[in-house]
């Protein structure tokens, strides 16, 4: 899920051969529900996504979470995917 516009993401997926499901939350519908949006009360336009990771089990229950304060901190999704597979969630 990205906060970028769908057209931007479509070009990104085509240029990078991305196969997984990618959704655009350009209108910020989903970000606040997951506590993954940064706002500033002085500026209504300031609504940025946090880099965040959620692991949801087969029953739709959130089991693990990481919401990062600094978007420049990185976590490789493939490392998390490997851990999920090993955990048997």
């Amino acid at each position, binding site marked *: 899920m990205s906060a970028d516009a769908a057209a931007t993401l479509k070009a990104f997926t085509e240029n990078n051969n991305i196969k997984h499901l990618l959704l655009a939350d350009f209108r910020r519908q989903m970000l606040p*529900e997951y506590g993954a949006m940064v706002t500033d009360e002085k500026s209504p336009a300031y609504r940025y996504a946090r880099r965040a990771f959620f692991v949801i089990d087969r029953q739709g229950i959130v089991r693990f979470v990481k919401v990062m304060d600094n978007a420049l901190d990185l976590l490789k999704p493939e490392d998390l995917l490997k*851990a999920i*597979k090993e955990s048997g969630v």
Partner: protein
Amino acid sequence: MKAGCSAALLLVAMLLGAPAFAAGPDFAGMQIQPYDPPKAAPAFALPDLDGKMARLEDLKGKVVMLVFWATW
């Protein structure tokens, strides 16, 4: 003697714990926290890049890794 017993107990505890740490996934190393207490993921319905609606409920029965990102 007492110190020796304590050291032995500690060693046993370490040996018992070691396989779990060695074999288990490294969530802690990635600073991934268990969501405690676990709760239902907020539902969502957003169009995918082809305009088809994608809903969390459609993924029930699968483990979902949900990653939020953007161009910062």
